[in-house]
């Protein structure tokens, strides 16, 4: 049964294992790795291996949630961390699965390409002597002479047009590229080579996708920056809040564009009363951009789903929030700080956390830490909260610390205070001092430390800059893979054999069909071929008589 094995590689179970030398062992290992069975096993392993990354929080997506998880799962957390469950897609075990699969893929595609190349150039096999043994078979008797019928069969399979015959339209599919071989009065035809071509294109394209992903990983970078309305961002390393370059990125060669956020329009669902209330509806940033500091300014709209592009770099609007404008004065009324400080939203109603660091305060530096609430209300258990994401009742709820803001110059988040070398200010009642400020309000700090004023609220846009030189290659690979996949699933590889022999004054035409794998259309192919030969023999017969 060679036909049933056309699909696959030789059965490894037949291989007996005599004493193998090191080379033999290598060859054996290679054969095992590139076998379909191993590929299947690796595919399933890949599917299973990908799952933990959807269950446990991942560092590359949300490092904060990983930290929370580790803090609340003190016994299991470190073990999961050691096993790479928080970095599944960059963990050694996940990488080893896909690298093995990659090798297996290459080891499968290369020899199959060679085989296919040879098969495409080879002649179809000779017709078997007994066509009735084939999976599909049919025969009929016609009046025409054997040679004539044989030529008709050839013409039909070659897709040669027959003028004046009405079968032409119905059987135009005969021109689907049958490759013919004739010996005496028997004919072999083979079609559907594009099936294996599609199969190989599909698998090769997957390799192209992987290369595209790798190129993006090595040469691509991403960076994020919060830009308060009215401010601007220049594309240099120092301009970023976070910057994550691939290993082979030239960080000096970033294209020097500038994006200024002039205005940010934000809309939330106000009309619904159910779970949809407060759901975001539209974010639009009005920007002024320059491709370089000397280039003219253009006004562009930046939306979710509508990034800006500068050469190969795209700018996305991925977040937004509030930046209260705060003025801090010292005891003499001199302004120590006046700026818009971005606060980070924590929930769907934009309850936001942030810190205001007044390093100019003396003798001790001042730090304010707390919440910005766009629609403030006092929750009995959670304290100051927000009931809506838009500005319906904006308020700042702050605690105050004094001391050393930057102990030992350690790097720290701009949204939190490092209170290690700081003490919290207390109110007259001895309780920690809590300030609740509304826009326009000024509160004096105890002990002549000055005052804090909540001037206004501005919005900020979370811009994300991405550069991925591999994405078009990955896209090309994916589209080619899809095309190859469709070809490999839809095209059938078929062989048909025709034999013609005389019986008395008439001629018997016998047609047999053989397909690779399941082929519900094979019977129809054999039947259509027979009826085409019959019709054409009859027409030609009457033509010659006339």
């Amino acid at each position, binding site marked *: 049964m060679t036909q*049933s*094995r056309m*699909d*696959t590689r030789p*059965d490894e179970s037949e291989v007996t294992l005599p004493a193998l030398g090191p080379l033999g062992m290598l060859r054996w290992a290679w054969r095992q790795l590139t076998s*379909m*069975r191993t*590929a*299947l096993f690796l*595919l*399933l392993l*890949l*599917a299973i291996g*990908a*799952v933990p*990354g*959807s269950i446990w*929080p991942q560092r*590359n*997506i*949300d490092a904060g*949630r990983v930290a929370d998880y580790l803090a609340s799962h003190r016994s299991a957390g470190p073990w999961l961390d050691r096993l790479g469950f928080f970095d*599944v*897609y960059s963990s050694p075990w996940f990488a080893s699965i896909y690298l093995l699969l990659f090798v297996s893929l290459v080891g499968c595609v290369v020899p199959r390409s060679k085989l296919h190349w040879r098969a495409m150039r080879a002649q179809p096999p000779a017709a078997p002597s007994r066509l009735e043994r084939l999976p599909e078979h049919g025969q009929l008797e016609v009046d025409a002479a054997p040679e004539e019928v044989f030529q008709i069969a050839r013409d039909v399979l070659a897709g040669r047009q027959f003028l004046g015959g009405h079968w032409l339209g119905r059987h135009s599919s005969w021109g689907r590229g049958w490759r013919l071989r004739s010996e005496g009065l028997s004919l072999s035809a083979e079609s559907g080579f594009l099936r294996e071509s599609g199969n190989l294109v599909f698998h090769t394209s997957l390799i192209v996708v992987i290369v595209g*992903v790798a190129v993006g990983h090595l040469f691509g970078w*991403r960076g994020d920056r919060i830009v308060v309305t009215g401010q601007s961002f220049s594309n240099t390393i120092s301009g970023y809040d976070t910057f994550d370059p691939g290993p082979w990125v030239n960080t000096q060669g970033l294209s020097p564009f500038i994006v200024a956020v002039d205005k940010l329009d934000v809309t939330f*669902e106000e*009309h*619904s009363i159910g*779970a*949809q209330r407060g*759901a*975001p*509806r*539209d*974010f639009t940033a009005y920007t002024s951009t320059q491709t370089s500091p000397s280039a003219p300014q253009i006004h562009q709209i930046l939306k*979710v*789903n*509508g*990034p800006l592009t500068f050469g190969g770099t*795209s700018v*996305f609007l*991925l977040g937004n929030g509030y930046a209260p404008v705060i003025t801090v004065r010292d005891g003499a009324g001199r302004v120590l700080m006046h700026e818009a400080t971005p606060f980070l939203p924590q929930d769907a109603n934009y309850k936001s956390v942030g810190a205001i660091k007044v390093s100019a305060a003396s003798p001790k530096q001042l730090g304010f830490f707390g919440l910005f609430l766009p629609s403030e209300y006092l929750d009995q258990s959670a304290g100051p909260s927000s009931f809506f994401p838009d500005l319906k009742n904006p308020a700042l709820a702050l605690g105050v610390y004094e001391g050393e803001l930057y102990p030992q110059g350690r790097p720290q988040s701009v949204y939190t205070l490092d209170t290690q070398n700081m003490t919290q200010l207390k109110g007259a009642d001895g309780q920690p001092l809590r300030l609740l400020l509304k826009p326009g309000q000024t509160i004096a700090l105890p002990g002549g430390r000055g005052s804090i004023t909540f001037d206004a609220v501005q919005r900020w846009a979370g811009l*994300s800059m*991405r550069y*991925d030189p591999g*994405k078009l290659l*990955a*896209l090309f690979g*994916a*589209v080619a*893979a*899809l095309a190859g*996949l*469709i070809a490999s*699933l*839809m095209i059938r590889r078929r062989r048909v054999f025709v034999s013609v022999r005389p019986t008395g004054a008439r001629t018997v035409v016998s047609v047999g069909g053989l397909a690779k*794998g*399941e082929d*519900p259309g094979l019977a129809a192919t054999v039947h259509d071929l027979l009826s085409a030969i019959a019709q054409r023999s009859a027409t030609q017969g009457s033509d010659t008589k006339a």
Partner: protein
Amino acid sequence: MTNQTLAQYANLAVYSAMAVFTLAMIAFALDLASSVPRVSLAVPETQKKPVRVGADSGVDVLASPAPRDDPDRPRRRQAAGIAMMLTRLGGVLLIAAVAMRGLSVHRPPLGNMFEFALVGAMFVVVAFVAISLRRDVRWLGLFVVGPVLLTLGLAITVFYTDASELLPSLKSFWLVIHVTVATIAVALFTIAFSVTILHLVKTWLERQDPASMSRIRTIVNTALPPARSLDRTAYGIHAVAFPLWTFTLIAGAIWAEQAWGHYWNWDPKEVWTFVIWVVYAAYLHARATTGWSPRAANYLALAGYGAILVNYMVVNVYFVGQHSYSGM
């Protein structure tokens, strides 16, 4: 602004469709039950022959068709005819429901779990009716209308979300391309899943001695096409659904690049879409390998559908990710 009255009419159409599908389901069940004539069971053992021939025919795939197609004793399948008509009517009601839901919110109704379920159920029915135009799949009706009814029931109760506008990240023409093709693929995978289950049942029944089968098993055995044919049908539907799922994956990646700036970020939904793709790819590979029996390969197809259910029911609701559009 959303037109709540129209959304109410859409819900009404869903309820009507559910009523119609319930009737269709009953009719399909009656049709299956009548595949074995009641008389034949009342007669003595020696006269049971026609039934046994029918049951036997499944064992040898090359044998003559089941007795319901026996020219000597043609079975008039009025119940199946009524069931098919009801299924089409239910399909029309679902199309109307989807259209009204879409018009009520001025957008394609693909923005939350209720809408996915509704559109998915519609595509299942449309695909089933389309297949039924080309071949006789009346035996499959019960196993298509049943899941559709279940889906609609869950959609209108558990997943129900008020008609409303979309989140900013969903406002893109890729929503129509990506989600529509995804729902069509899931619809086809659902039908293929039903056929695969039936294939496993039929394979199991074909191994049993038809003479000692209980009445219910005899009915199922007679009503279903031969296992080989079921297997072929299941494979054919999977072979159409898989490229559609591949397209879903690619379109999703392109859209993700537009909306979030990265075409692949291992978001839970992306992970599960990938897992589904890999499992069905393994199924197709297993089918192409001689070492695997169709039955073993079909277990992979079932695992793939299990992953689809997880992707829809678990990931949307419980996992934190960027695809959190369940509206719940």
